[in-house]
């Protein structure tokens, strides 16, 4: 009986410790809440005095505060540079999740019950159209420099802004491919059997834009080419970098529907890769940014959009070898929008059929 008592003492102590631990966990939640609601409380207050003043000058004076949650598609370095620039300019702290378009959308879906995101930056226009259609986006018509944007890449109501774009092309290893293919159909030839990668549209927004864009022009007949691709041993290989990487190392020779800026980045570094755009045309995939309606810090979110469209970021965009979203900012060391042959695409069809196409594509290439 006595021994028991001793162990009981020990157990009592541990029980108490655990109890405290549990209590500690319990209080953490509410404490967080008060902290964030305090931040929220501060934001509207700051908003009051500046309302309805001329938009041009006060942007910088406006007392922005709190934090902004941004879900951003790559390129990683650009996203981080934009984050740093924005934080320095506004004093608002950014919490960023970096992922592919597919991952960002899934994250939003998973968090539907308790949304935390304020701004999303995607790599696929139809996805942004989808967000708008579901009523998730907030309009911001008076965004600075919005008038200079290429109109087809943005929403006319100001629900999303195509601040940059990439074009899809045929990327190849220059050591392994002295005579690169010229057309999409060339990739069905015997000489490329088993040597071609294609990014997974379920992960890569721009690859999705290419596949849906191609199909929107060709109709169901478009699947024939993709089926032939599959027959020729084309492999579906993750998102863009994962599809391009084997081309760099020489494990594969060609990437079909690869995003161009990554290839140009690798090329600039000295890797043996290059890119062509088929003369029959390709898809340019705009990268839209949108404010999410449930944002708790709308002013900071608007300032983020303004910053994306500013000269500063547009130059960063060009430096990453992406196509700048503004007409007045030239592309750098790469073909500009006018030099890339484009095929006719139907963005509305692409938006409506994105999920179905993704599913069918995954099944085909599995």
């Amino acid at each position, binding site marked *: *009986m*006595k*021994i028991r*008592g*001793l*162990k*009981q*003492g*020990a*157990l*009592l102590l*541990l*029980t108490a*410790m*655990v*109890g405290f*631990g549990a209590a500690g*966990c319990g209080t*953490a*939640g509410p404490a*967080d809440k008060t902290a964030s609601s305090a931040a929220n409380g501060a934001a509207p207050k700051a908003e009051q005095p500046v309302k309805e003043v001329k938009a041009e000058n006060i942007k910088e004076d406006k007392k922005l505060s709190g934090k902004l*949650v941004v*879900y951003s598609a*790559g390129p990683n370095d650009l996203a981080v540079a934009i984050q740093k620039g924005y934080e320095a300019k506004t004093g608002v702290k*950014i*919490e*960023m999740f970096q992922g*592919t*378009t597919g*991952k960002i*959308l*899934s*994250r939003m*879906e*998973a*968090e539907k*019950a*308790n949304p*935390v995101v304020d701004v999303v930056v995607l790599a696929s226009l139809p996805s942004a159209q989808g967000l708008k259609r579901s009523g998730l986006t907030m309009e911001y018509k008076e965004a600075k420099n919005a008038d200079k944007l290429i109109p087809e890449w943005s929403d006319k109501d100001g629900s999303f802004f195509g601040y940059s774009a990439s074009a899809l092309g045929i990327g190849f*290893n220059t*050591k392994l491919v002295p005579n690169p293919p010229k057309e999409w159909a060339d990739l069905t030839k015997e000489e490329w059997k088993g040597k071609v990668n294609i990014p997974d549209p*379920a992960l890569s927004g721009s690859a999705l834009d290419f596949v849906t864009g191609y199909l929107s022009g060709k109709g169901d007949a478009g699947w024939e080419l993709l089926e032939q691709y599959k027959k020729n041993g084309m*492999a*579906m290989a*993750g*998102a*863009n*970098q*994962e599809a391009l990487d084997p081309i*760099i*190392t*020489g*494990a*594969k020779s060609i990437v079909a529907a690869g995003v161009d800026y990554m290839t140009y980045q*690798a090329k600039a*570094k*000295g890797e043996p890769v290059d890119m062509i755009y088929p003369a029959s045309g390709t898809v340019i995939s705009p990268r839209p940014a949108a404010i999410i309606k449930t944002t708790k810090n709308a002013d900071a979110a608007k300032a983020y959009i303004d910053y994306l469209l500013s000269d500063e970021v547009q130059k960063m965009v060009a430096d990453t070898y992406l196509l700048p979203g503004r007409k007045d900012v030239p592309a750098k060391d790469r073909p500009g929008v006018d030099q890339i042959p484009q095929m006719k695409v139907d963005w509305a069809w692409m938006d409506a059929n994105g999920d179905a196409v*993704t599913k069918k594509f995954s*099944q085909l290439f*599995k």
Partner: protein
Amino acid sequence: MQTTTLISVKKLGMTLALLILAVLVVIPLVLILLTSVQTETGWDWLAPLRTLMGSSLGEVFLNSIGLGLAVVAGTTVLALPLAWILSRTDLKRHTWLDVVLLIPFMTPPYIGSMGWILFMQTNGYMEQLIPASAAWTQGFFSLFGMTAIMSFHLFPFLYLILRNALVQIAGGKEEAASVHGGTFLYTFRRIVMPLLLSSYAMGALLIFVKTIAEFGTPATFGRKIGFYVLTSEIHKYISSWPIDFGQATSLASLLLGTCLLIWYVQTVISQRYTYAMIGGKGARVTVLRLTIWQRALAWLYVAALLGLSVVIPYFSIITASLLKLRGVGLAWGNFTFQYYIELLAWGSRSMEALLNSLSLSLTAATISVVLGTFFALMIHRSRTRSERLTDLFSLLPNTVPGIVIVVGLILLWNAPWMPVRLYNTYGMVVLTYVVFFLPYTVQYVKANFAQLDASLFQAGKVFGGSGFYIFRRILLPLILPGMLAGWMMTFTISVRELVASLMILPPSMETSATYIFAQFEQGKVSLGMAMAVVSVGLTTILLLGLNKLLEKRTIGGP
């Protein structure tokens, strides 16, 4: 009077333990099952099976099972001869081999697989070293290659189990057979095999469960060769567009069911086929003297095994982290340390990820040691029903695949009715790690505690020690080694944890594992590999250091 209060304390503790375990482990798993059988119109108990039949997911299930069987076969082929060599021949005195053999097991599978991919792919390191190998390297990218990679990762586990069993089968039994004229094969077939069987069955089933629960290799190598299994599909349905929680929970409950079934089978086997192997006579193992040729052969086997399971993956990992231009390949002048400098720059994304990993693991390890010790003391000798229940629940995370637990935790903590907003916070990650690795502490402390005789505590009481005093001066010092072992294990594994980190980290947060994975997916493989080297190296040094420290203590102390 005292007795009643003490009993109620014990009861209170037990209730608390069961309550915590219910929230941490049981409710999340029940939620998965409920969600998978819930349809818009009501309950449908066959819904998960219907989901499977209705799509190509049946194939995914068969893939998982097939892979599991293949890996069991693969690890058996690798581990059985090794266990025999290192328990019965004079090679057994090389105890350092046991430490080296732990390396493959401690290498995170997603990193090891990536190493193999870089080594074997077209124009990979293998073909750069031996151009003629181009003829067959493509053959590696098949189910065979996947089985090989996973077997090289898991075989040390089976080896340890088999070797311990072989050591316990005292030489006397074999000598008896020999005296009665049994040949070597006869002895092996009629004496060693049956005695080994229960250990082998346990090891093999564990390997099977570990294989079908594995995520890292399917996510890297499996995807490359188009071989999809349950874990990779669950991850896909939860994290890539368009997401489908229904499919994910169906698959998760299927995986859960399979693992629990196997666990049950294993319990039955180990209860029925366990023989008392340790008698009063000292166990004496006869060491086989090898001829020079036999010895050379044995060493060749050991060397080949180490080459395949340690040297090749680490060669790839380290090389990839040092290559300046990956398109140029292995060439003098193409090596650089720039990725390490970039990686370890203060304030960089990678450094933040590394620090996040360390602080998360530190917190998780500490909490799980406290909780685990509490549960282990509650379990005591698992005699009453509530003790057994605590035992069962606290060890459940060892049997249930990590990805299934994560799905359950998301369902619970992200539910609209959940008042505590833990999802998307730092706390959620810590919670998941704690649930994942709780069994380690529970097992270590339980084993430690079971060896303590009641007389120790009686002595303390006789000399008038209070309950707290006895806890502090007798119980705690004696179970401390178990607690420390649990802490170290939890810490090391948390630092490398991938699947939970991928699925539940709050938006702005990265750990070293997700950083590496992100680099493989969308960034620079070289940076990812540099991070792999740093994080594996760091935890290994930490473990070795702690081990040394403990050794000194035990030698110096009583």
